[in-house]
């Protein structure tokens, strides 16, 4: 019992980075942009999230402020990366798959370069601490699983209904879905397709940056080149798995983080199972999940991956 509670209480915080990044990617894809560069933006977010409290907040009396500032900077630069990607795939209409690889290499490379210059070796930060919510954290089983995490965990899960509301109940959400489904029709009623796509990219980039900063500030409390470890790509896969719906994406993120927690727990128990095969588990799961959810692609935004050209008939 304790073993399972342990795994679950690990799985919940592990899911946060995936969840935030996937929700961002969901906004991109709902607007018709397939952003494979998520991994690179997350790397930038992870670096910046740590850099601010590490450099300017060093020894400061209120590390909380600097952590918060780190998160904000990560989101801001993430949004800039999203807009930069927009110039390539929206303005210039470049093929999105290969451009995404470019953005990924650019982001990971930049984060690595800046990290070596500004931080150097393995340095850790205090990061954002876990808080036990009074009373609620004392509930047996549910308490440790749900109520002993840092503030971002709660915010991330709170963001699931918010994202759902934004996407399905606000005019902006309607516009996002419209430009991702039928940009020509959206254009004909006066929606500025490319502008909405840029907005979605900025939102997606900001969330990817935040997800990265979560990894460095809350989870690892340090930065390394391998900190993202494919989570950006898994986040993209989760959007397919979750049928472009925030709630289903949340379940997907929890499922994957459960696999990751299980893998750590197996290692911790000293079960004689090659470590490398345990690490493979989430990646194998992505492929299996994608292979068995092919009909889900029919549910996706119909204009996904297709650049929009006002001046061309198609």
């Amino acid at each position: 019992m304790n073993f399972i509670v342990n795994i679950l209480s690990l799985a919940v915080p592990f899911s946060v980075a995936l969840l935030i990044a996937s929700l961002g990617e969901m906004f991109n894809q709902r607007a018709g942009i397939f952003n494979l560069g998520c991994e690179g933006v997350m790397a930038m977010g992870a670096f910046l999230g740590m850099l601010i409290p590490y450099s300017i907040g060093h020894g400061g009396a209120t590390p909380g402020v600097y952590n918060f500032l780190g998160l904000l900077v990560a989101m801001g630069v993430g949004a800039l990366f999203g807009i930069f990607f927009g110039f390539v795939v929206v303005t210039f209409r470049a093929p999105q798959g290969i451009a995404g690889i470019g953005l990924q290499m650019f982001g990971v490379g930049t984060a690595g370069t800046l990290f070596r210059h500004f931080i150097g070796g393995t340095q850790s930060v205090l990061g954002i601490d876990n808080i036990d919510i009074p009373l609620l954290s004392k509930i047996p089983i549910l308490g440790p699983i749900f109520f002993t995490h840092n503030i971002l965990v709660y915010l991330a899960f709170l963001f699931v209904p918010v994202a759902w509301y934004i996407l399905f109940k606000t005019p902006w959400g309607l516009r996002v879905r419209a430009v991702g489904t039928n940009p020509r029709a959206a254009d004909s009623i006066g929606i500025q397709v490319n502008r909405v796509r840029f907005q979605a990219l900025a939102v997606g980039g900001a969330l990817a940056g935040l997800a990265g900063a979560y990894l460095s500030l809350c989870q690892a409390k340090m930065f390394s080149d391998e900190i993202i470890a494919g989570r950006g790509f898994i986040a993209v896969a989760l959007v397919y798995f979750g049928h472009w719906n925030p709630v289903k994406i949340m379940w997907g993120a929890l499922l994957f983080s459960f696999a990751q927690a299980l893998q750590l727990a197996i290692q911790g128990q000293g079960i004689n199972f090659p470590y490398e095969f345990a690490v493979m588990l989430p990646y194998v799961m992505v492929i299996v999940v994608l292979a068995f959810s092919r009909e889900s692609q029919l549910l996706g935004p119909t204009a996904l991956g297709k650049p929009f050209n006002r001046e061309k008939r198609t």
Partner: protein
Amino acid sequence: MTKTFKITYKVTIIILAILAAMTIGAIILLTIGADVLKTYSVILFEPLKTTLQLSEVLIRAIPLTIIALGIAVAYRSGIINIGAEGQMAMGILGTTAIALLFPELPKPILLPLAILAGAICGGLWGFIPGILKAKLQVSELLSTVMLNYIAAQFYTFFLRGPMLDPAESSLGGSGTPQSMRLSKNLWLERLPGTRLHTGIFFAIILAIVIYLLLWKTSTGMKMRAAGASERAARYGGISVTTYLVVAMVISGAFAGMAGAIEIAGVHRRAIEGVTGGYGFSAIVVALFGGLHPAGIIPASFFFGLLIVGADMTQRMVGVPANMVNVLQGIIILVIVATKMVLADPYLMEKVWRKYQKITNPPKEVEA
């Protein structure tokens, strides 16, 4: 439109693209307070100054050429292979396994057999995303990335376990997971005094093979047709999915062979970090080389130069070697954007009209 205008237009766009790429790179360099011009000149010219450095550039160009050829075949067939890194690792495992199992075989048998094993292992690793895409419409972009991570784990598993150098475990050794030094019968000849090996001829031969395959055989024509327009190809009776899988197998096999050549020529044992990002750099090389063997060979020399140059910036101007990843990322983004601009006839016409307005003002005004 005059011909001179068309050429000037295209050249101007390419120059603007290069400037844009260098400016973005310069922003990153300025952020870390580096001397921009000096960094660029170290990267581009320093490796050419000595024969030893030049040979190092060529050594990097060999796997880049081989992998990029495979990626070009896949790209032209309509499938983007970003899994070369994993396919190369699997190829190295295949080659190492053969060399460890049959070290006594004579060179003319062992070497081709080991390279073949590398090609088969890499090809299998390319077959998986190919068949998944063909049968289950799994995006190759995601599956190949995941297979990279999986292959990396296989690689360390074998190097730490079944293939570990016996000297490592008993005497402590170097602490790096690596196989024992492979049989001399696997080694490729080297140019005396350098590490430059005969794999360079192999890369050139493969480039010719790919040129013949893609442009001189009906298989190659069908592959290119499938990539250019899937619907039209299917209408023309081409089994698009079959060629998709074939292209991915070729692509994987090439990455596997690159791995085989790399350990037979340079490392002579399987060791961590052999792949070292070649699989990703080769994507840039393939795009930069215009997805054509004749372009890929000079492009891989250029990126070999960047990789060696970026190693030198660390010592000479204090710029981390990761800068090469930044440049590669920018180059991909700029190439794909520039390609679209160059392929847009409407934009060219717009510019032409503006140009005419400036050079010859409308005649009606005079009349």
